[in-house]
């Protein structure tokens, strides 16, 4: 049973299981929650491509695999292109009548970490979207190169300490603002883009279903709390995700056809950004007096972004 009709978590927990639990992701890793939900929210046949990163190295370790569907990993940067190639072959074979099960609906999905999505695989993703392939790309955005031990990416937020942008006696760590992939992908021709978080699992399932049903390229930015690199207790993954969405550091919204912006979640009680930052070791140095200004700038930036999103939504343009 797919998640389509699922009303509550209990039903969800017994849903169609296509992503097996026997993998090597850290306990508490949000990657597995996102992937499992994507795979369980649809009954369609799935062809999945993955970039190199935590997900790939932990789920297909020969002679085992956690994937009860067709799956391919080529390299760090080219999952979107692998999906393009598979989708092109599907079209060619469907036309020629050489498919073994020609009537079965097939969806093409690519997963990448933020490293492969925002940085090294950006061109491959952008090319696949521009070409209009019918696939969904999901970025498992943990804001760091987790698989290789915590180097910065262009998704790493200001003030975060990573091994290649470390905080120290005189530095507060990352200096660059997180790249705005949502706008970039909307402007690149993605038919549907959305930001999701596993704590809002119903919204995530709806977004996944919408993107799979949309013809053409879709981009989903999934916030994926990483207990190892963000430095929090593995049992707190959903709690940290709640702080992320309720502080509006990660607003959940979608952009349809490149312009129509809808906010998908409005927290009843908006919490201060410093509560989110204070929950993770990667930001702990920001609470030293000399870096207080970074905390203040954070709040200002998040407020401005929320204001912008609301105005975009209201404008309906």
């Amino acid at each position, binding site marked *: 049973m797919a998640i389509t009709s699922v009303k509550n978590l209990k039903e969800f927990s017994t849903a169609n299981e296509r992503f097996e639990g026997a993998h090597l992701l850290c306990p508490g890793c949000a990657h597995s929650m996102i992937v499992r939900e994507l795979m369980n929210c649809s009954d369609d*046949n799935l*062809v999945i*491509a993955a970039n190199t990163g935590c997900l*790939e*190295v932990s789920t*297909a*370790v*020969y*002679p085992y*695999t956690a*994937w*009860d*569907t*067709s*799956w*391919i*990993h*080529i*390299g760090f*940067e*080219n999952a979107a*292109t*692998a*999906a*393009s*190639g*598979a989708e*092109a*072959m*599907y*079209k*060619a*074979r469907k*036309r*020629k009548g*050489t*498919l*073994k*099960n020609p009537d*079965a609906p*097939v969806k093409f999905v690519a997963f990448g970490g933020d490293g492969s999505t925002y940085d090294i695989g950006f*061109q*491959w993703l*952008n*090319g696949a979207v*521009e*070409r209009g392939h019918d696939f969904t790309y999901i970025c498992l955005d943990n804001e760091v190169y987790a698989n290789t031990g915590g180097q910065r990416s262009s998704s790493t937020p200001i003030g975060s300490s990573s091994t290649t942008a470390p905080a120290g006696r005189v530095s507060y760590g990352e200096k660059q603002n997180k790249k705005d992939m949502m706008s970039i992908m909307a402007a690149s021709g993605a038919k549907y883009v959305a930001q999701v978080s596993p704590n809002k699992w119903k919204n995530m399932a709806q977004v996944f279903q919408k993107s799979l049903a949309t013809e053409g390229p879709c981009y989903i930015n999934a916030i994926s709390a990483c207990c190892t690199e963000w430095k929090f207790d593995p049992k707190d993954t959903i709690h940290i995700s709640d702080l992320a969405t309720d502080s509006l550091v990660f607003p959940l919204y979608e952009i349809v056809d490149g312009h129509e912006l809808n906010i998908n979640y409005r927290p009843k009680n908006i919490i201060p950004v410093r509560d989110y930052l204070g929950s993770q070791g990667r930001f702990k140095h920001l609470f030293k007096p000399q870096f207080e200004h970074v905390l203040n700038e954070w709040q200002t930036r998040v407020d401005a972004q929320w204001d912008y999103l609301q105005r975009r939504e209201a404008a309906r343009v």
Partner: protein
Amino acid sequence: MAEKIELQKVEVWDGNYAASHALRQAQVDVVAAYPITPSTPIVENYGQFVADGYIDGEFVMVESEHAAMSGCVGAAASGGRVATATSSQGFALMVEVLYQASGMRLPIVLNVVNRALASPLNVRGDHSDMYLGRDSGWIQMDAFNAQEAYDMNLCAFRVGEHMDIRLPVMVHQDGFITSHTAQNVNPLSDEEAYKFVGVYNPVEEMLDFSRPVTYGAQTEEDWHYEHKARQHKALMDARPVIESVFAEFQKVSGRQYKRVETYMTEDAEVIIVALGTTVESARVAAKQLREEEGIKAGVVAPRVLRPFPFDAIRDALQNCKAIGAMDRSSPGGALGMLFNEVSAAMYTTSARPVMSNYIYGLGGRDLSINAIKDIYRELQENATAGEITTPVQQFISLRGPKLSFFETRRS
């Protein structure tokens, strides 16, 4: 179903056009490609054939060569016939994915129209890209002219898709001299060609959902070695398969190919080993020298560079006295690849022909028949002396002072 084309018995095609007709006749399902001189027309022609209804495939024009090969891998894992083309810088950009394609045992056909590698930037033919690919786990077949560019493409699908092999195959031809020179080509009819290539037989395909497959798994020290060893074995096992495909091809075309092509080697005392169009020039030079100067000259050419025809090379060179290995790629601080590999083959026989290495033709520098004759004359001196009379490695047809390395100690 795609429209057929009524071909003439003899067509006037350049190497690129010949290769693209072979792709059309093989009814390749997906071509993912990116343009680069001198290989561009191959994929342009494929696109035109699709546009005109002569191929029922998908032409995916991607944003780089790395993506081109990545798209080919995704497509090939989805159970259909896949091909593309590239040269030089594009080939270099593909290299990461070449290893991934062969490691996943996907029978993709890649036309490599050989061209020099920058810097300095150069669009002309040499064999730098072909040499760069030689450890990538692909089968490499070399065409010396347009006819062979056509023939080797048809054979490449058969070899790579063979159930015991399942490996990707490169078909090489020389940039411009082959790719852009119109020559007489005798094609098969569409029916004959398609019958020879056959219907694609999918193995472990991603689009058969009754048997989900995982491609590109992680292996560390526990399994990586076994995978690589089996891959090497498949390459080695390709030798008899290539021979049987060539034999079958001879039946339908009348044209005979071997893993190592020999010319006037039976009684030859001096032999040049070369690749690409140089083989044809060397044949002309050898014939003339036999007539003009009585030098017993011959030519040996690996038709298949990988798997390296170590066995057939030995057989072909056993009885000669001196060998000139001609390498058209900057040797980068070593002896040329052909010199090293041919020497290694000869060292495992009791024969000890005198070996020397000639570097030539980089970046499209012309190689004249006279320059080849000079090489034969030097080889003849070596043969007569029973030892090397020149430096081991010489750069020929180079401007300015002579350049050579490794003076030999005489007895």
